[in-house]
């Protein structure tokens, strides 16, 4: 979800793919066109009948457009004018809408990004845009195709996997590759220094919103934590180590919170048990008092009966 809108209930909606396909221009066309087709940014209906006026991409300031482009995996520096950036964003959203959702989920599984199973295409695409990994093992063909398109590669449906991988590697560029290799080397050095093992677990989607309020715990349990080597390879030395420290701190906090919760549960159980004991003891005491009263009444009754008998039959007037 974009953070550009000030109202958290607002959501940018894609125009209808079918109807917009004719109007959608390519980037080159858009550059040539002075006023590209405006993309309507419609708000999410908060209540029926109350709809704020629609916002358009072209109305957004340049910095917000750049941020949005960055979230969609576009390089905003490649677009010198606002119109070109808006057109590129429009094209990118059209392209995302045309992608197969299952293919996008394949990429998410492969990249181990924290996404709910019911997430929308745009949200999934934004997560995919953050994936920088170049290790494509385990990624399906359709996922590879979707990833290639997300990275701005002109990939076709019938392109075999080796061709797609070659195109992706070609797209990465020489310096980026060198930097990635350098980070991977650094990551493996750090991983060896801290003695981390590369054990992995099966990927799981995050639980849906509302199923678990502790997002940290969800994220911790929802996916296999990447190794420090992968962290450093993807985010650099400091970024990787910061991520790792953050995750370790999160895990520690979650563990402590669980312990505190378990302790509170134990205390509550203890209180409950003691209250039940106290209740039973009180009732037993009341019954005991009643029993004693009845016994004394009976004894006095028997004694009184004997006294009356003696008085009537043995000692008559």
């Amino acid at each position, binding site marked *: 979800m974009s953070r550009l809108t000030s109202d958290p209930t607002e959501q940018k909606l894609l125009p209808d793919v079918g109807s917009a396909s004719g109007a959608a221009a390519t980037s080159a066309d858009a550059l040539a066109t002075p006023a590209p087709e405006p993309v309507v940014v419609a708000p999410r209906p908060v209540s029926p009948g109350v709809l704020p006026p629609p916002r358009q991409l072209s109305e957004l300031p340049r910095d917000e457009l750049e941020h949005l482009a960055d979230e969609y995996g576009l390089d905003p520096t490649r677009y010198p004018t606002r119109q070109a950036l808006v057109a590129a964003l429009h094209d990118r959203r059209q392209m995302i809408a045309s992608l197969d959702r299952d293919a996008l989920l394949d990429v998410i599984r492969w990249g181990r990004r924290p996404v709910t199973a019911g997430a929308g295409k745009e949200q999934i695409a934004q997560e995919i845009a953050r994936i920088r990994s170049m290790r494509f093992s385990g990624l399906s063909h359709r996922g590879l195709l979707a990833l290639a398109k997300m990275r701005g590669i002109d990939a076709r449906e019938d392109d075999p996997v080796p061709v797609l991988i070659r195109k992706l590697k070609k797209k990465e560029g020489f310096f980026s590759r060198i930097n990635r290799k350098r980070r991977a080397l650094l990551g493996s050095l750090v991983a060896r220094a801290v003695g981390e093992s590369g054990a992995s677990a099966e990927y799981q989607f995050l639980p849906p919103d509302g199923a678990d309020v502790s997002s940290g715990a969800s994220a911790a349990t929802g996916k296999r934590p990447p190794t420090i080597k992968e962290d450093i390879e993807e985010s650099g030395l400091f970024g990787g180590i910061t991520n790792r420290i953050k995750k370790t701190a999160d895990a520690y906090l979650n563990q402590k919170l669980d312990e505190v919760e378990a302790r509170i549960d134990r205390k509550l159980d203890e209180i409950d048990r003691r*209250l*039940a004991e106290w*209740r*039973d003891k009180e*009732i*037993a005491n009341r*019954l*005991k008092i*009643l*029993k004693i*009263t*009845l*016994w004394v*009444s*009976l004894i*006095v*009754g*028997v*004694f*009184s*009966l004997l*006294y*009356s*008998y*003696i*008085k*009537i039959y043995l*000692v*008559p*007037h």
Partner: protein
Amino acid sequence: MPDIDFFNFFRWTLAMVVTVYATLITLQSLWGWYVWLAGSDKYVGLLRRYLVVHGLRLRFRTFWGDVLICGLLSVAFLILLRAHALIHDIEAKLNYVAPHVRSH
């Protein structure tokens, strides 16, 4: 022999002292609990429901022995009461018949 009915005396003492005292104390305590638990505070409501749940969780089997004994003692108490009524009736009849027997 002095004409004393111990059972009557005991019963009246018990009724006048113990029952009145116990009833007053119990009513006072119940009223205090009612006023406290009738509050509209969130936590008082929570406690109210908790007490209801505790009451529902009470098991008869825990006290069934004592309850049975109390029931049997109550039955014995009623039988004794009936025996007293009979013996007092006999006494009244004897007192009525005695002067006639003496005169004959």
